[in-house]
């Protein structure tokens, strides 16, 4: 039947002449599939004129084999039986292109990932399965049609969501390359979590000293439009032209006029928990987020303001008008998007055994703020309960990390930041006893191992074993658990307990993911396409991710990814246009009854009913999933490259002979 089917479209110039290329992939495939048998079998299939095998088909030599056959032997369809199209389809399509054969006349059969690898113990059946898969590929190849890529223009501007260290680097790199950048940050100032840190490992640089100059550069770069105290309200459009709607929250302060003098805060009578200092001290209802804030502008906390107008009267430049209540909305278009929304910290209340309710049980970030000269205690370490200096401090590692009850992943930074805290404390107060209770120490970065060794040399005591409980005993705390090395139960009586809380996906990441049509993994972090080879790309072309919103990361990695995302976005935008695969749905107008079933089913909102009574496919939005094609009651939608005919031939190949 296969023969008769292909005979129907007998066209001398286009009659299928298929070349089948079977790859050994070293022993990856040849180790469990009998290549000889597969080659002999392939020769018997209709329309196949050449069958070859090669040790590594993707090598230059292997690719040349295919090119030569196209040029000299007149091969006009290529079937490669090798690995996954995810990694290699693009490579072989280029091979076809360079031999002047339309690249969509290529079919890849994966006889490795789902065949030789899982069936390595059963050579006979692995070989049988490989034959089936190749047969199905060959049948489909007979029905392939040449397709042309489409061009899409790309705006030379980018949106960066989140103004932490990763977003700052992405914005600066994009702006330096000449692109217009909109940097949107939800807080009044950029800087992110790094702005809250005192020192950074492994060099103990002052965090503010290395971050603040970059923040200033952001504000001085004309190409960057800084939108702080703002949130993304809506995203529409597609790669090359996204339409962004930003909600700029009402500050009641005219930032054109505000000079950041801070007089308004001085007169404000309302005291509110200061989030920047982890609620350990108070700020005013009208405030500047922190000393190095960029922009250095005041904001009125509308929920806490009592509208006494003292600030309004005090402001010498007349910037404040507390009657202003409405948020502003700003709309603009960009060619690409970089998401750098960072992370949130694990809520230690979820580990009730560590008694976070107790004033002397604090998180590492709270300790960090205490250690900072501009923090709530001006750099002194004091017990929150009574303001006395602690004699013993215990650090509990992996609070909310590597724990099946909370998060099973490792947060990567906690070992080294606790060592940083212990070292800095030992340098300042050598008399304090410091214990670090860990499961494994993972100090993996450049210079981190030496950093750890120096902490030991300074007398920090490292105890391996999980802590089971923290109890208050009088005005002190008993930390109990086990010491794996000694195989004994231990307890340490401490004055201050520091919980190394995990990094978690930022709250609201699911909502943003829905807005941008990108995926999150099971832990809520944004998901990259390929963990090794495409670490900053998402499954929405034109949208990139960087920094801790992709997974726990320290500063150097977050910076590196910010720069990588900027580079990926600029290589996309540099030509001003991109090729897109023609794998979209096509409406056959003569058959279409305009029932609009397809419109209601399309997840990507790619099909619309137009004013002139037509159904139109937006090829930039269409992912070629084929749902519309399958659902269309009149068969009026053709899914390019996955036509009904092509799929039917594959099914036929797999079911032929089965009763």
């Amino acid at each position, binding site marked *: 039947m296969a023969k008769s089917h292909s005979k129907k479209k007998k066209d001398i110039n286009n009659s299928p002449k298929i070349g089948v290329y079977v790859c050994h992939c070293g022993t990856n495939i040849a180790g469990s599939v009998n290549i000889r048998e597969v080659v002999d079998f392939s020769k018997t299939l209709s329309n196949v004129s050449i069958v070859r095998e090669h040790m590594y088909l993707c090598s230059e030599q292997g690719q040349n084999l295919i090119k030569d056959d196209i040029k000299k032997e007149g091969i006009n369809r290529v079937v490669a039986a090798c690995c996954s199209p995810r990694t290699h389809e693009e490579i072989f399509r280029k091979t076809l292109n360079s031999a002047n054969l339309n690249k969509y006349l290529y079919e890849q059969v994966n006889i490795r990932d789902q065949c030789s690898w899982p069936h390595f113990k059963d050579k006979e059946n692995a070989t049988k399965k490989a034959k089936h898969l190749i047969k199905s590929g060959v049948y489909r190849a007979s029905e392939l049609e040449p397709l042309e890529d489409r061009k899409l223009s790309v705006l030379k501007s980018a949106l960066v969501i989140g103004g932490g260290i990763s977003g700052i680097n992405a914005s600066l790199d994009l702006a330096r390359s000449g692109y217009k950048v909109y940097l949107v940050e939800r807080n009044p100032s950029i800087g992110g979590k790094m702005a809250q840190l005192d020192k950074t490992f492994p060099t103990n640089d002052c965090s503010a000293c290395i971050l603040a100059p970059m923040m200033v550069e952001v504000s001085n770069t004309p190409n960057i439009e800084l939108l702080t105290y703002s949130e993304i309200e809506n995203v529409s459009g597609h790669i090359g032209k996204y339409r962004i709607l930003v909600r700029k929250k009402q500050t009641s302060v005219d930032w054109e006029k505000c000079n950041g003098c801070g007089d308004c805060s001085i007169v404000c009578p309302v005291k509110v928990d200061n989030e920047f200092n982890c609620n350990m001290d108070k700020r005013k209802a009208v405030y500047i987020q922190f000393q190095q804030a960029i922009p250095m502008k005041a904001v009125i906390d509308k929920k806490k303001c009592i509208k006494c107008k003292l600030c309004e009267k005090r402001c010498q430049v007349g910037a404040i008008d507390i009657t202003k209540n409405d948020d502003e909305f700003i709309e603009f278009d960009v060619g690409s998007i970089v998401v750098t929304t960072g992370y949130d910290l694990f809520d230690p209340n979820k*580990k*009730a*055994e560590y008694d976070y309710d107790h004033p002397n049980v604090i998180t590492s970030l709270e300790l960090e703020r205490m250690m900072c000269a501009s923090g709530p205690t001006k750099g002194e370490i004091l017990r929150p309960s009574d303001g006395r200096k602690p004699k013993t401090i215990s650090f509990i590692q992996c609070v909310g990390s590597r724990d099946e009850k909370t998060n099973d992943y490792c947060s990567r930074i906690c070992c080294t930041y606790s060592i940083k805290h212990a070292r800095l404390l030992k340098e300042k107060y050598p008399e304090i006893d410091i214990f670090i209770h860990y499961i494994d120490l993972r100090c993996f970065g450049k210079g981190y191992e030496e950093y750890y060794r120096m902490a030991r040399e300074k007398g920090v005591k490292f105890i391996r074993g999980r802590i089971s*409980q923290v*109890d*208050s*005993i009088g005005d002190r705390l*008993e930390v*109990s658990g086990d010491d794996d090395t000694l195989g004994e139960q231990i307890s340490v009586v401490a004055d201050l307990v520091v919980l190394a809380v995990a990094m978690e996906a930022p709250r609201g990441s699911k909502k943003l993911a829905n807005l941008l049509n990108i995926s999150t993994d099971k832990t809520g972090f944004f998901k990259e396409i390929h963990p090794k080879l495409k670490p900053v790309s998402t499954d929405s072309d034109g949208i990139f991710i960087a920094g801790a919103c992709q997974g726990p990361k320290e500063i150097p990695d977050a910076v590196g990814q910010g720069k990588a995302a900027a580079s990926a976005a600029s290589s996309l935008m540099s030509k001003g246009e991109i090729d897109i695969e023609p794998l979209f749905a096509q409406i056959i107008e003569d058959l279409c009854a305009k029932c609009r079933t397809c419109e209601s089913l399309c997840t990507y909102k790619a099909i619309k009913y137009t004013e002139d009574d037509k159904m139109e496919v937006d090829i930039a939005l269409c992912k070629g999933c084929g749902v519309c094609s399958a659902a269309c009651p009149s068969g009026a939608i053709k899914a390019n490259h996955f036509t009904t005919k092509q799929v039917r031939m594959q099914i036929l190949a797999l079911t032929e002979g089965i009763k």
Partner: protein
Amino acid sequence: MSLHATDYALYTGCIIPLRYPDIENSIRETMSLLGVNVYDMLGAGCCPPGGAFWSVEEMSGLVQSARNLSIAESMSKDVMAVCNGCFCYLKNSNMLLKSDQEKREKVNTVLNKIGRKYQGTISVYHLVEVLHDHIGIEKIKQSTKIKLDGAKAAVHYGCHLLRPSDHLMAENPEKPHKLDALVEALGMESVYYPKKLSCCGAGGGMRGNNPDVTLRILEKKLMNIKYSEPDCIVTACPFCFLQFDLGQKGLRDRGEDFCIPVFYYNQLLGLSMGLPKKRIASLSETPRDGFIKKFYGVD
């Protein structure tokens, strides 16, 4: 919520009927005054506990539990367990059998031989859940005549009221509050003491097999309790009760006397309701007459 919030099949377990008829009385009489009917599970056997069956042969343990559950099923009543061990293993079996069809079928093949069948139609509750969740703190407060103002209680939950937590789900295993709330409903103060959730030392076959270790664990526990200088220890598990009460005698024989009175929760509840001491709180090795005299004014 339960089938009938006022009707339960009472699963007494082994320790209460064997050793503490006064605790059994306290449960029956207080429940009746609270308007709750408890019905006897005729023919019920051992729960059975983990140490005796589960750790050796899961299926035998399941079959025996399922047999007990099937008795309550034929009464169309939810089970009220009054011992942590019974609660843990009956509820655990019930959850396992409700969710695992394969195990349910195997168990029923065995039960079929004695003409029984496990169907999965009822739930298992601990006495603490019935008192706190189904009857409610307010009703308990109203039922009492004597308020224990000024008395300090060290509450002991016991391991198997809370764990394995993903199956029992009776409370937040790290920060339980229901028994504290019940104790405070009587007017007492539930005091903080270090390592409140640690084991009394009775379970896991420890008390039966290793008297020395069991007393050392108890000693640690009592030292932590003593830290808060409570007037009594309150628990809702007869095995923990036995360990605290009889264990203190063991320590006393070694020359270490803690002398902290121990009560099963319903004994205090009954005394507060005005029930006579003789019927509901007459058996103990560690003296508690002083406590009863001081706070209830009865000899």
